[in-house]
């Protein structure tokens, strides 16, 4: 189970604040400005897991100030540009000032609120619009009205929060409205407001069946925004942003300049994008020898051929050495020490926590034996780490059985990601066995462990749960976990594509249902 997830009956959130990325995308798509300026919010969210989880998103004082400043800045930008205002008016908007203002409010409000405004809401905004001439200077009456209502719309709680009220609850459960489903679906798959097609479907009450949701989901996944949303999930799951600041000791690894980290990020991102575009599966992520290189990355892999700095070329890595994302340079070098020694422990911790959803226990409350100086000259890294944390030591419980075996599978790769067979004159040992939830599996090294991961129900369960957290934008509740388990089983048994994993989770009842506290 994803740490933090709960099988206990916990109410689903009824309001969910937009993440920073969702806010940025939404503002961009709402205002239709060719150059909306800097949309960065200086106050970042202190999220615990993924960036969109409702449970961790609040409006604190500094974020409010940022949102207010941005709303004022953007509203002024639109109001000062007649063309920009015209983009936000409906086609054939009436000329009568009040009717025109009403049309502006209803059209823009429908998109910002992701539902039609009520009559009372329209009237409230119209009243504010009519104050435009007295609240602004240097603008026409209409432009002044636009500025002041945009300033309000962009800070409105009905814009900043998605809602999940649904209809009347029966036995503590209520199905979400069409507009709520549309908004949740759109933010799950495009990180922004619903497009015209999805909005029309919601207006027509056409989102109450799983088939209808699936149709829109498949359509949205294929859009550029859909691909970007998938990228964002993998970016977070695999920590790709951390590669960007990868630094190595230049005395040991002069080839690892500051430019390398971002390139390794790009390499893994392209690998994941490629698999997704090919209807790839979770197994493929852990077993495919395909990758993409430019001249720098090709050099780091030791590939022969002609490569250029600006062109990324698809290549096949040696499948006996490298299979899947865990054998890519980014992962291996990120989990490497400052020099060229591999960080076996943190490679193992990552696999246990992020890929297998294990909640590792804290270290023992005693001091571990210290590595004597000089032992590194005639021992392998595995021998050193095992001496301190392996079987027979105080760290045996976690390190000996869970962390070290997973990490040691990658001993054939040093801290720079280079394949090697000896260390300090000793042969490297990357064999081991791991106690998966569905049984102990033995392996000879990284390729076999990656394959074992792909065949493990534990990996499929954890991966589906992580996708659930991302798509449902919350720490998974009991019903969410049940939906994830169903899709995980299909992923394992039927080898469904990653795209079908997404659609499966979005067509589950849990996605369109509000659950009350018991």
């Amino acid at each position, binding site marked *: 189970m994803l740490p933090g997830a709960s099988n206990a009956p916990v109410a689903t959130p009824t309001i969910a604040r937009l993440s920073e990325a969702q806010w940025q995308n939404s503002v961009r798509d709402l205002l239709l400005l060719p150059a909306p300026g800097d949309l960065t919010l200086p106050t970042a969210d202190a999220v615990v897991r993924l*960036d969109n989880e409702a449970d961790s998103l609040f409006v604190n004082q500094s974020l409010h100030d940022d949102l207010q400043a941005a709303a004022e800045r953007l509203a002024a930008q639109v109001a000062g540009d007649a063309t920009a205002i015209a983009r936000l008016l409906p086609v054939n908007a009436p000329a009568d000032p009040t009717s025109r203002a009403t049309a502006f409010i209803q059209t823009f409000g429908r998109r910002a609120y992701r539902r039609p405004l009520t009559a009372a809401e329209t009237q409230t905004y119209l009243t504010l619009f009519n104050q435009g001439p007295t609240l602004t200077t*240097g603008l026409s009456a209409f432009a002044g009205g636009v500025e002041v209502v945009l300033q309000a719309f962009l800070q409105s709680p*009905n814009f900043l929060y998605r809602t999940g009220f649904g209809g009347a609850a029966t036995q503590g459960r209520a199905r979400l409205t069409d507009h709520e489903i549309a908004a949740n679906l759109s933010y799950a798959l495009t990180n922004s407001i619903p497009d015209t097609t999805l909005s029309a479907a919601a207006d027509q009450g056409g989102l109450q069946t799983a088939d209808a949701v699936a149709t829109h989901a498949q359509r949205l996944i294929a859009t550029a925004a859909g691909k970007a949303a998938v990228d964002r999930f993998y970016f977070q799951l695999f920590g790709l942003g951390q590669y960007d600041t990868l630094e190595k000791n230049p005395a040991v690894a002069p080839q690892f300049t500051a430019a390398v980290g971002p390139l390794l990020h790009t390499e893994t991102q392209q690998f994941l994008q490629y698999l997704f575009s090919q209807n790839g599966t979770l197994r493929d992520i852990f077993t495919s020898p395909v990758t993409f290189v430019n001249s720098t990355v090709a050099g780091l892999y030791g590939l022969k051929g002609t490569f250029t700095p600006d062109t990324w070329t698809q290549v096949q890595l040696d499948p006996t050495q490298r299979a899947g994302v865990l054998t890519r340079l980014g992962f291996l070098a990120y989990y490497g020490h400052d020099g060229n020694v591999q960080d076996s422990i943190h490679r193992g911790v990552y696999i246990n926590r992020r890929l297998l959803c294990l909640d590792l226990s804290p270290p023992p409350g005693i*001091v571990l034996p*210290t590595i004597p100086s000089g*032992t590194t000259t005639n021992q392998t890294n595995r021998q050193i780490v095992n001496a301190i944390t392996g079987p027979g030591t105080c760290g045996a419980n976690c390190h000996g059985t869970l962390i070290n075996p997973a990490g040691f599978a990658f001993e054939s790769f040093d801290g720079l990601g280079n394949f090697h067979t000896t260390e300090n004159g000793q042969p490297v040992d990357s064999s081991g066995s791991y106690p998966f939830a569905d049984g102990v599996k033995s392996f000879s090294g990284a390729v076999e462990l990656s394959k074992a991961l792909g065949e493990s129900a534990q990996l499929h369960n954890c991966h589906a749960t992580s996708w659930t957290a991302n798509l449902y934008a919350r720490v998974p509740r009991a019903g969410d976990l049940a939906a994830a388990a169903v899709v995980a089983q299909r992923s394992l048994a039927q080898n469904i594509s990653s795209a079908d994993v997404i659609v499966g989770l979005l067509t589950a009842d849990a996605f369109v249902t509000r659950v009350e506290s018991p």
Partner: protein
Amino acid sequence: MSMRMARARIRTRTTTASAIRTSATTTPRDSQSFGRRRFLVGAGGVTLGLPILDAFLPRRVHAATPPFLGIICSANGVVQAKAGEAEAWWPSQLGALTTAGMLADKATRATGEISDYASRLLLVKGVGHTATATGCNHASACAQILTGTPTVMGSSNQAVSSSVSVDTVIAKALNAPGVDPLFLHAGMYPAGGSGFNVPSYISYIAGGQQRPGIDSPLKAYQRMTGVLGTAAGSGATGGAADPLALRRKSVNDLLRAEITTLRARPELSNDDRARLDQHFSTIRDIEVKLTNATLSAAQLTQMTSVDATPYALGNHETIQTLHMDLMVFALSSGYTRVAVLQVGDREDDHIYTVNGTSVQFHTASHRTLPNSYTLCQSIDRIQINHFKYFLDQLSAIQTPTGPLLDQGVAVNTNQLSTGPDHGFKPLPFLLAGTASGFLKKGQYIDVGNVSTAVMLNTLAAAVGVNTSMGGKSGTVAPMLA
């Protein structure tokens, strides 16, 4: 009310707390701060012009400063005597601290690095977290160090506090409305969801809600001076009839009404209702910013140079000292009465260079690198010298009643006691400044078995705030003068 009377009131007050609730009351000592502020009318509402203080013109005399609290908190623990390792942090003798005594300890004890301040220090041993670990001592300790909470929510490295932190309590009691505590962060990871490897902050706005630390000193400065978080639309002429101020007022009225309507929905859970309540509280018609104090051009240049790369290894220690400059600036100018710098994340993964050797601090703290014990001692000394820099800046500012340092309390502590075992006790608490005589000085004391919550109560009391952190009342009596 005299200072003594104020302290007596704090000592005798008892607070009833059900579950985990933190309450705060203020003593009259805080009233002097508001009396010294000037209220100006400006763009977007009323600008709170803070007192004209030459904060960054060292040794110039300015008005007396009310008590403040500045905290520097590191991670990974320090090298203490535990399970076979020799003591390398605390002084060798309890009791009075002298420069000579601390210098004599300097070869073996990291606190000897700060011997110049011996007569103004209070070292407090015996404080520890009370909540048990929930799968990751780092996250659990991170959740407790400023909250003293007895209940940690969540598990593993996603554990969070269930209650508010002391800096928030103090800021709400003493700062101008809408001015948060200054909370700065010098770590390896940014906020915003970079993929589970998140910083885990020690400051909490409320239970379950961390306050994101500001990584860039420049942005923190801009926030204080109003460059961030304010904007000018049409109008913005300044003055009571400023169109932007009027427009903001009308918009705010609409937003408040919308939140009120939303909040009335019966489907909302208590958590969601609380979320809206907090949002409502952030909407204010008064803008607060510093209008009459600035940092030096050299400092701003240095801040600008590291603005885009606050997480770079090479900038880590520069960021720390710049953050400390900002803390002194914010505290001395009266912008805030409480400022916190978190060094590291829930663990400190920074790679320090010790005698030419690169050391990943967290790994060394687990003693899984050759010479880890010695390397960690060196890192402890680096961090104590950073704290000394903070004290030097506070001491350099004179007030009519003495150096600024003596008006408040500067604290150096750590989320954990020791690294190898991720220990919860004894936490290293190194205090300087007495809050104008409220706390003892020149002493190294062992208070036995005191919770983090009660230590936090004591620090809050020193600045005039009576609180019961994590639902625990009382103060650490041996610390009081």
